[in-house]
């Protein structure tokens, strides 16, 4: 990995070094891969291509894979990278525009590398989370409506049936009552106002 850095170093002016420290941090972005990711030359190439795509998309210039420089890789799979301008390889593209480009195409970069916001972190670049999905009616209101509808129907049914039963009982006058009771035993003497078969205690 250092060999590629050295090679590019020879193309650049001596002042531009592939050393990633605090002085050059303005131009460099550090990233972390937070899972067991097989890191080799081809994966690095894919990453560079993804960043090149993001930069081209954001700035409308044509970036090449060679414009993305990766250095100081660690076993954690974290490294610094820097973007050089396509017109002038010795000039570095500012950190802010790189950040904006990454932010704009973050989901695309994630999908290219088969990672997500939790497993691929660009230090200093906050992810843009998906907007919450707001359905037209909140789903709980639908269930609530169903339940209260059923309960309301139940109450109405019970009230109506009580009223109907009471009406039927009142409509039955003495004769109908007598006929019903005559079937059981004896005849009810209607001289009593209330035909009460049970005596009060």
């Amino acid at each position, binding site marked *: 990995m250092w060999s590629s850095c050295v090679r590019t170093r020879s193309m650049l002016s001596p002042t531009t070094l592939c050393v990633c420290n605090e002085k050059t941090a303005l131009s460099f972005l550090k990233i*972390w891969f*937070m*899972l*067991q*990711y097989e890191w080799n030359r081809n994966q690095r190439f894919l990453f560079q291509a993804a960043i090149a795509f993001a930069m081209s998309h954001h700035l409308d210039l044509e970036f090449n894979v060679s414009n993305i420089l990766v250095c100081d890789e*660690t*076993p*954690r*799979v*974290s490294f610094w990278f820097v973007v050089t301008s396509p017109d002038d390889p010795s000039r570095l593209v500012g950190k802010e525009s790189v950040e904006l480009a990454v932010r704009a195409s973050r989901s695309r970069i994630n999908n290219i590398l088969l990672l997500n916001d939790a497993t691929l972190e660009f230090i200093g670049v*906050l*992810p*843009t*989370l*998906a*907007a*919450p999905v707001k359905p037209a009616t909140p*789903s*709980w*209101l*639908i*269930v*609530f409506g169903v*339940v*209260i509808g059923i*309960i*309301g129907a*139940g*109450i109405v049914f*019970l*009230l109506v049936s*009580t009223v109907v039963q009471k009406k039927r009982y009142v409509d039955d006058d003495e004769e109908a009552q007598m006929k019903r009771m005559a079937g059981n035993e004896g005849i009810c003497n209607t001289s009593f106002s209330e035909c*009460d078969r*049970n005596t*009060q205690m």
Partner: protein
Amino acid sequence: MAKDARDNWESPTQFVLACVSYAVGLGNVWRFPYLCQMHGGGGFLIPYLLMLLLEGVPLFYLELAIGQKMRLGSIGAWTAISPYLGGIGLASVVTSMYLCLYYNIINAWSFWYLFHSFQSVLPWAACPVNSNRTGPMEECEKASPTQYFFYRETLNISPSIEKNGGIQTGQALCFLLAWVITYLFIIRGVKSTGKVVYFTATFPYVVLFIYLIRGMTLHGALNGVKYMFTPKMEELANPTTWINAATQIFFSLGLGFGSLIAFASYNQYHNNFERQAIIVSLINSGTSIFASIVTFAIYGFKATINYENCLDRTRILLLNSFNLAEDSITINNVFEMIEKLNTTFPEQFAELSNKLEDCSLENELSTAVEGAGLAFIVYSEAIKNMPLSQLWSVLYFFMLLMLGMGSMLGNITAITTPLRDFKFLSHVSNEIVKNIRNRIFLQSKYFGKSFCVMLVVFKGLLPKLICTNTTFFYNIAGALQAKIK
């Protein structure tokens, strides 16, 4: 047919199920496990069962006796024993009224959570995104998603009890629904209540059983169960343990509120309530113990998950700070690596020390929670980590609802029965009386959580006063009972 023939339960089973439904309530699920944890695990069962024998069963039996023999609600029954004791009955009716006011709010919360379970992602599973869409909301990140959902999205809690936060529409609707359902259950008196209790008494056991199986098969559940049942016998020397055991028996069985008198008053005169009293008391205590096994299995699962997440965060922090390969630190050797890195890179490690969390399974297990916090925050946190969490969520909150509704039935019956006994009210149709009373109760939607907590804490005082007076007069009741027999 005599006009004032009293309604009766269609069968003794209905009466037993009604008592079970009333006694087995939210307290069995969220208070008893907490007490068990606080007072020495398995050792707490000793004072609990002793109090059941000395205090619970006798009082339960006596209340059923009064109700069944007098065949009147609490006011009438106490007045029948002695005219000077009518005040006890009145006090219990007033207490039941206060209870009804706030108890249905908890049912409203259960409805809210139940309705919100019908979503592809449970709303308390993750924090909502903030306005910049750069990360989760700050308030939610400081607490946890489940706490945020309960305190902010459900209650929209105000900073203190003095500040009035206004009416939450969603909560008001759920509260209205809770009262409407209660009305439906009691609309025909014991005829409707008797049918409803078949379901409200038995369904919670189905869910508890399902949760027992699910809970025991969860990763880390045995940690919790072991923690709970390890007895700490020194707690028995603490008088608070015995006081709490007595209080728990008292409230768990619902003594002194007039509900048991009311239920028993609809019994046949020669019903064998002696055996039923023992059965219901034993079922109630057995359910408490059963529910606490389930709760501690869930606790153990939640504590283990939190502990492992803590270890994972520590692992990532170490990997990032020291730029090590991904597989050099695993969850199992986090602590060893901390030691190793501390010795090899002391200065770098010192910089990390304020970011490093203290991960301990004991600490996670010992955070005991009771009350609404347990039912709505801790449990929902555990549920969101289960596979197929929507199903478990629906089952769980439906069970909470059945437990709450069953207890509400008892409380409402404690109020309607004495009112019905008054001759001038029996002319008014039952439905109308209940309707009017419900409308009055709906005004209690202005109560919020702080009031609920306050009422829960203080409602106990009145029945306790009743109880101390009544135990003296229970001798009279016993003598009266012998006379009647």
